[in-house]
């Protein structure tokens, strides 16, 4: 889809997802790494629990379909080589240190993925992925209220910012296509990660109770319904929805009444109008529903509950672990997986097809590049001789 678009990605953790989405959609993405390797190669986990520049599984997940060239952009030779490569590219993607922003004058779409705002008081703040997620809001609201906040155990700021930058780059390309001008695109990791704080910044200006850090739902008639229920082999997520989705809760109570005893008038509750009547009656209905779900789920498997929810049409889902995900029939039959080679010679099924199209297919194509794997072919393409490339190597520039 992006045939003819060449992207130079000066690799940072926060650029990797962007480059990968663009590469998956057909762009020719070249990862530019310092001679010692990109920082993303040092992110855990590692293949076989053994560290190594070619063994980082985060690297493998986020760099397929790209080629790698090493050059030291801080040296004048490295900079010159970069500019030669950039003359063949439409997009340059960088982290917070934007070395090549002036390339917009040459018609390039330049995207810098910074930690904070470009012009704000935190523009030079020290950061890691964890501190950005803290700054963005999701961490404060994740976990149990009586304990410290939690994080998703995968760096999320780099994922959010990378996905955001893919959109931003394509938006910049659209403008370039129309006007023929280079575009300067700025993405903030913090702003990107704020998407997962949802509407929480907008509660303070209202009289409504702020969101709380809790695995339970907002209180209704004084009752906080759990979101997670134990079942025989794990947990399930359940939404006792009201309002627009109330009909689904009705179907859930009808189903649960076939499994465990539940008073007929509770089954009959109109969840689209809930809560109604006096509070104590509403509380009785809600609590009876929670108790019935707790009892019914305790003897069932998570997949059986998921099957029932999908069959009867209500909001309950098994908490899948990664093994469950690899076996889940829906993902397999839909074609999420494609084989991706690992450096130990094995191949794994990777969840490659994040989208399906009527007239395009995402494929795992080439595996993530080895360090400097394509330096020779790419520098030869911009006119360097074999002797010259060897000289650059001898000087530690590539």
């Amino acid at each position, binding site marked *: 889809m992006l045939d003819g678009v060449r992207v130079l990605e000066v690799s940072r953790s926060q650029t990797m997802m962007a480059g990968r989405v663009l590469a998956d959609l057909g762009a020719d993405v070249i990862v530019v790494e310092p001679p010692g390797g990109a920082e993303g190669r040092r992110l855990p986990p590692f293949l076989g629990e053994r560290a190594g520049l070619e063994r980082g599984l*985060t690297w493998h997940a*986020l760099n397929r379909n790209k080629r790698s060239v090493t050059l030291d952009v801080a040296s004048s030779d490295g900079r010159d080589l970069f500019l030669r490569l950039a003359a063949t590219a439409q997009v340059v993607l960088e982290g917070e240190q934007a070395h090549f922003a002036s390339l917009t004058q040459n018609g390039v779409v330049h995207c810098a993925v910074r930690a904070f705002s470009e012009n704000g008081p935190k523009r030079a703040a020290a950061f890691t992925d964890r501190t950005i997620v803290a700054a963005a809001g999701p961490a*404060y609201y994740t*976990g149990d209220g009586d304990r410290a906040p939690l994080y998703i155990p995968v760096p999320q700021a780099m994922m959010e910012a990378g996905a955001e930058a893919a959109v931003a780059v394509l938006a910049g390309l659209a403008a370039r296509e129309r006007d023929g001008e280079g575009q300067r695109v700025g993405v903030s990791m913090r702003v990107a990660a704020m998407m997962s704080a949802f*509407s929480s910044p907008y*509660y303070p200006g209202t*009289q409504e109770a702020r969101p709380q850090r809790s695995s339970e739902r907002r209180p209704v008639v004084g009752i906080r319904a759990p979101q997670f229920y134990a079942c025989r082999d794990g947990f399930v997520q359940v939404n006792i929805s009201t309002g627009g989705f109330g009909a689904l809760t009705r179907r859930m109570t009808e189903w649960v009444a076939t499994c465990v005893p539940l008073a007929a008038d509770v089954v009959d509750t109109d969840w689209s109008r809930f809560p109604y009547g006096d509070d104590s009656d509403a509380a009785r209905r809600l609590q009876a529903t929670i108790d019935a779900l707790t009892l019914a789920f305790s003897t069932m498997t998570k997949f059986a509950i998921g099957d029932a929810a999908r069959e009867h049409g209500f909001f309950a889902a098994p908490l899948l672990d990664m093994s469950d995900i690899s076996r889940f029939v829906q993902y397999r039959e839909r074609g999420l997986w494609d084989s991706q080679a690992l450096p130990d010679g094995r191949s794994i099924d*990777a969840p490659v097809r994040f*989208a399906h199209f009527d007239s395009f297919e995402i494929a795992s194509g080439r595996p993530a590049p080895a360090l400097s794997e394509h330096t020779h072919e790419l520098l030869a393409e911009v006119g360097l001789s074999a002797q010259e490339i060897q000289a650059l190597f001898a000087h530690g520039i590539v």
Partner: protein
Amino acid sequence: MTASLAGLRVLDLSWVMVGPMTGRYLADLGADVIKVESRKRIDPLRTLGPFVGGVSHPERTLSYHFINAGKRSVTIDLSHEAGRDVVRSLARHVDVVIESFTAGTLDRMGLGWSSLSAENPRLVMASTCLFGQTGPERAAAGVGTLGAAYSGASHLVGWPDRPPTGPFSAWTDSVTPRFVAACLLAALRRRDREGKGCYVDVAQAEAGLQFLLPEYFRFAANGVVPGRRGADVDPHRAPSGTFPCAGVDRWIAIDASADAHWRALRSLAAPALDDPAFDTLLGRLRNRERLHSSVAGWTKPQDRDALERGLQNAGIPAHVLADGDDLIDDPDLAADGYYGRIEDPMIGPQRMRGAQFTIEPARTMPARPAPLIGASTDEVLREVAGFSDAKIDALRRDGVLA
């Protein structure tokens, strides 16, 4: 300079978050995004808060503005065949259609990709739902909390000694729109070059898995099934974590594992962290629990904002755990124009975000209010579908434009 997508027209048939936020990305880039909704079957987002003034009312929720800013709203009742005809007429004159119904719903209404693309071969259309348009479970209805469960996220977040807590809110709703928007923009680029439309199908649960790939690869390559690790998300770093500060539920994240950051922290906190066991990274990792409780003992009595400033002045990665009150008031977020002021006829002046990123010299749109329900019905049907006033009046009389 004009915005990237000025002149592009989008028909947004979606509700709640994933589809509408995708539409908002396009609106922020200058596209004319027409949101189709109905008073008969109101967008559930309009029933969710926070409501300005504490009054639960479909025109008063800030969540709706957050996700639908800058769109035009038309009301069409899709349960009428005539309503579906109106959508067909509009779809002939737009570049993009976005929909997020449960798979199969739009086909049953005769508004699926095969029908719409037959009449508008240059159409680019995106469908997004829990599991996508194909596969045995495609017809499952879902929201972002279920997406989090099916993507593997909910299983990974929580304390090992308690039930999971899952990620905050309807997690896959925040992840997925970027994938849909990127696919749409790529497809539009191809259409402009080759004249060919495109159909994009994104499953929200599968999109969520993309943000968890390192844990999936840990399983697929190493055979380890990751579980809940509590606050200990990165066992390779120390000190690195969330530490308590003075006040109720006030916290700071500090990540001073790198040698220079550690030395700076140690001198700032002296003598709290002087224990020679902490001299080396290896020592810190082996005594991680003791190290982290020493750091917590040092942070506990301190004001979190002053502490953040002190740590940042010493070059140490640190930030308070921001809550909504912090996020709406942070001057750093105002600096690049992330927040703007909107003026809405129902809720008056409000602070609301603009675009998610900046582009120059083409620009993104400033913060704008979301539309009142049906505010542009007549104007859109006249301008876009070419309907006469008489036809619009007749449709309204028949209850089609409700």
